[in-house]
C-alpha cells in the first residue's frame, strides 16, 4: 500500500538527461504521487490550440464532411502563443473578439489536372496575417527520405474535385479531446535496483556468468576487469527478469534480486509538435501549481470560516 512519506519528500530534484525540441528525458527524485500527477497533467491539461469548428463551404472530395473535419482537427498547431488566447467559454459573449479566442484558417483548393492532388496542412492559410515564431500555424513536417518539407495529408482530390473550408482553431486541453493533447509520449518508469549475492556469484563459473550476461536482452550486465559480473547499464533494465530465470536454471534462484527503486523516476516526454518538449513539462508544472494553489486557498477560506 502506498503511503506519502513527508520526511523523505521534502526535496524534489530534477536532472535533465536528454533534451531537444521533440524529446525531453529527465529523472525526477521525489514522490510517486507527484510524478504521476505531472504525467497526467502533461497528457490531459496542458492547453494548446487545435481546429475545433469547420465551416464547410464546398466539399466534393472523397471524404465526407465529418471525416474531413476530424482530420483537420487532429493536425497539430504550433501553440507557443496559446497562453495569450482565451478559452472559448472565458471570452465575453457580448463582445466577441475572434482574435482573442481563435485563429481562423482557410483551405481552398481545386484540382484541375488529371493527376490526383494531395491536400496537406501546407494548404491551410491563416486568415488574420500572423508571422514569426509565435504564429499559430500547422506544424511543419519534413520527409524522412529527402528532408523536403511535406505537409500532413488531409485528403486527395481527383479531377475537378474541390475543397473549400474555413477552420476555427480554439484553445483547449487534452481532457476535452485528444487533439488538444500536446504529447505523443508522456511516461515514466521507476529505476531498477539489481542486487547480486556476491558469495553465490563467486561460485559461478565464467561460462555461467557469461550466460547470465547474455540472457539480458537489454545488455544491462557486463564483465569487469576481474571477470566478475557487474551491473553496467541499470537504466536500460525493463524488468523482463530474464537474468533471474537464467540464474534459476543454474539452481541459484536467490542470486539476483530485482526491485523498483523508490523515489526516483525517469520521465520520457515526446512532443506531438505543438509545444517544445521542455515547454510541455514547464506548462504542466504551472497547471499543477495552480491546482494546488486553488486547494490551499479553499482550505484557508474554510479555516477562516471555522474560526468565525
Amino acid at each position, binding site marked *: 500500500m*502506498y503511503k506519502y512519506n513527508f520526511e523523505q519528500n521534502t526535496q524534489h530534484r530534477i536532472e535533465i538527461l536528454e533534451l531537444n525540441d521533440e524529446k525531453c528525458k529527465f529523472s525526477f527524485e521525489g514522490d*510517486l*504521487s507527484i*510524478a*504521476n500527477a505531472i*504525467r*497526467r497533467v502533461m*497528457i*490531459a491539461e496542458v492547453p494548446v490550440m487545435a481546429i475545433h469548428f469547420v465551416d*464547410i463551404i464546398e*466539399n466534393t472530395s472523397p471524404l*465526407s*464532411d*465529418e*471525416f474531413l473535419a*476530424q482530420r483537420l482537427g*487532429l493536425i497539430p498547431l504550433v501553440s507557443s502563443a496559446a497562453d495569450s488566447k482565451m478559452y472559448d467559454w472565458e471570452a465575453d459573449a457580448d463582445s466577441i473578439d475572434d482574435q482573442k479566442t481563435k485563429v481562423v484558417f482557410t483551405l481552398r483548393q481545386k484540382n484541375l489536372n488529371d493527376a490526383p492532388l494531395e491536400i496537406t496542412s501546407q494548404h491551410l492559410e491563416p486568415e488574420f496575417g500572423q508571422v514569426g515564431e509565435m504564429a499559430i500555424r500547422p506544424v511543419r513536417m519534413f520527409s524522412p527520405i529527402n528532408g523536403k518539407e511535406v505537409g500532413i495529408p488531409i485528403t486527395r482530390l481527383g479531377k475537378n474535385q474541390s475543397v473549400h473550408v474555413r477552420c476555427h482553431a480554439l484553445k483547449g486541453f*487534452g*481532457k476535452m*479531446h*485528444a*487533439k488538444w*493533447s500536446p504529447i*505523443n*509520449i*508522456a*511516461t*515514466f*518508469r*521507476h529505476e531498477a535496483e539489481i542486487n547480486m549475492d556476491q558469495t553465490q556469484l563467486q561460485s559461478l563459473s565464467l561460462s555461467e556468468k557469461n550466460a547470465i550476461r547474455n540472457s539480458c*536482452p*537489454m545488455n544491462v550486465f557486463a564483465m569487469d576487469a576481474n571477470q566478475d559480473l557487474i551491473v553496467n547499464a541499470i537504466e536500460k533494465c*525493463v*524488468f*523482463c527478469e*530474464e537474468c533471474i530465470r537464467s540464474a534459476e536454471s543454474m539452481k541459484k534462484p536467490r542470486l539476483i534480486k530485482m526491485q*523498483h527503486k523508490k523515489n526516483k523516476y*525517469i520521465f*520520457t516526454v*515526446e512532443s506531438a509538435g505543438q509545444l517544445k518538449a521542455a515547454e510541455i513539462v514547464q506548462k504542466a508544472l504551472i497547471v499543477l501549481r495552480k491546482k494546488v494553489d486553488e486547494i490551499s486557498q479553499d482550505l484557508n477560506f474554510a479555516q477562516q470560516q471555522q474560526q468565525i
Partner: protein
Amino acid sequence: MEAVNQHRLPAGHNAQVAVMSYSCYDIEDALIMNKSSLDRGFGRTAVYKKSVTECEINQRNKESRFNERIDEPPTKTHNTKKKFIKKYHALDSDGITKVGAQLHHGDIYVNKKTPQVPDNPQIENIQIADTPSVFKEKWPYTVDRVLIINNTNDGTEKIKTVKTIFRQIRRPEFGDKFSSRHGQKGVVGLIVNQEDMPFNERGWCPDLIMNPHGYPSRMTIAKLMELLCGKLGALEGKFKYGTAFGGENVLQVGEELLKRGFHYQGKDCLISGITGEYMECYVYQGPIFYQRLKHMVIDKIHARAKGPMEKLTRQPVEGRAKDGGQRIGEMERDCFLAYGASNLLIERLLISSDPFNVYVCEICGMFKSDSVCRGCNTDKVYQIRLPYCCKLLFQELLAMNIKPKLQLVPSHERQEYTMN
C-alpha cells in the same frame, strides 16, 4: 488473407490490446476503450441509409396532369405556422433535399404531391394531396447524395425517381459491439481517459482492454498467437501468420521478441495510470485486429412516456419502430407481487396502460351503458374501473354465450385474505 486481398482493404483496426482486468466494467466480455483512441478515429464508422421516392402515373387516369410530381416547398407567409414550415427546412427550391442538409425525425426530404382524380375528369381544378417522403430515423442523418432519374414511360411521359442516401458518422460509445476475428465479441463497457489507462515505460498505452476470462473457456489459441505474432510483426515491419494451424512457431517468435527487448511471452510490465505504481503482474499486450460490428446502441436505444396505443386493446403498442412501450410481462408482474408493491402494480397494469370506467349492475352483474339497469329495473348500478382488455374479454365471452357475472362488494366489506 492474400486470396481476397484483405490485408490491403481491411475492415477494422489493429487495436493495441492489454489483456487485463480494469474497473469491473469489463465483466462478461465487455471491453474498456481508450477515449483518446476514439478521439483519434478508432472504430469510427459511416452508416449509410438509402431511400427511393418514385413518382407514379395514376392508374385510373393516365393524363399527365394526374401524375405524381415533386413540388417546391411552401413559402413562408404571415399565417403559416412555424412548426409547419420547419419540416421543409432541408428542401431546395426544386422540392428535393440539399446535399449536406441535416435531417431530423419528421423532416421532409422529397416534397411529393399526388393529384386526386375526380369523378369527372373534365374538371380543371383538381385537388392535390401532400404525399411527401418523411424522414423516419430517430437520430439526425446528413444527406450524402441525391440521385434524380427521369424515367421515360412508353417514350412519352417523363417520370421522376429520387434516390437519397443519408449518412451518419458514428463514434464508438457505450454498448457498441466489437469483435476480434476469433469470435471473441464484446460490447464497450467503459470509455477511459488516456491518463487513467495503464502504460509501460516506453510510453505504450492500450486502445482497448480485454478481460482475460474470455480465454480459458473459449480456448481461442489463435488470438493469443495473433497478439504475439502481431507484436513481433509490428517490431519487424513484416506480416506474420497468427493462425493456430501452422503459422509462426511461437517459441521462435518469443525468442525474436526477447532479442528486441521484450518479454519472451509477450507480457510487459505495466504501470497503473491512476496511481503510478507498477502492476503486480505482467500483462499480455500487443496488437489484435478488431472489427466493429453493426449492432450499435444508437439503433436500439428506445424509451417512451406516452405514445401510440393498440386499437383493439387500448394498451400501448409493442416495438421500437412503432414507438412502443416497455412490456411488464408475467415474470415482471411476479416480481411486483413478491415484493408486495401493489400500488405500483395497479399503476403499471391499469393506470398507465388501459384504464376504463364502466357501469355494472349489482343484480345482473353485467356492463351497462349508463347508471340505470333497465333489465333488472334498478338503479343499483355502480361505476367501476377495470382494464379495457378485461372488459373486452367479458364481451367476447358474452359473444360465445358465456355469461361472466361481476359480483360487486363494497370496499369496506372487502374480505381480508390470509394464507390459510
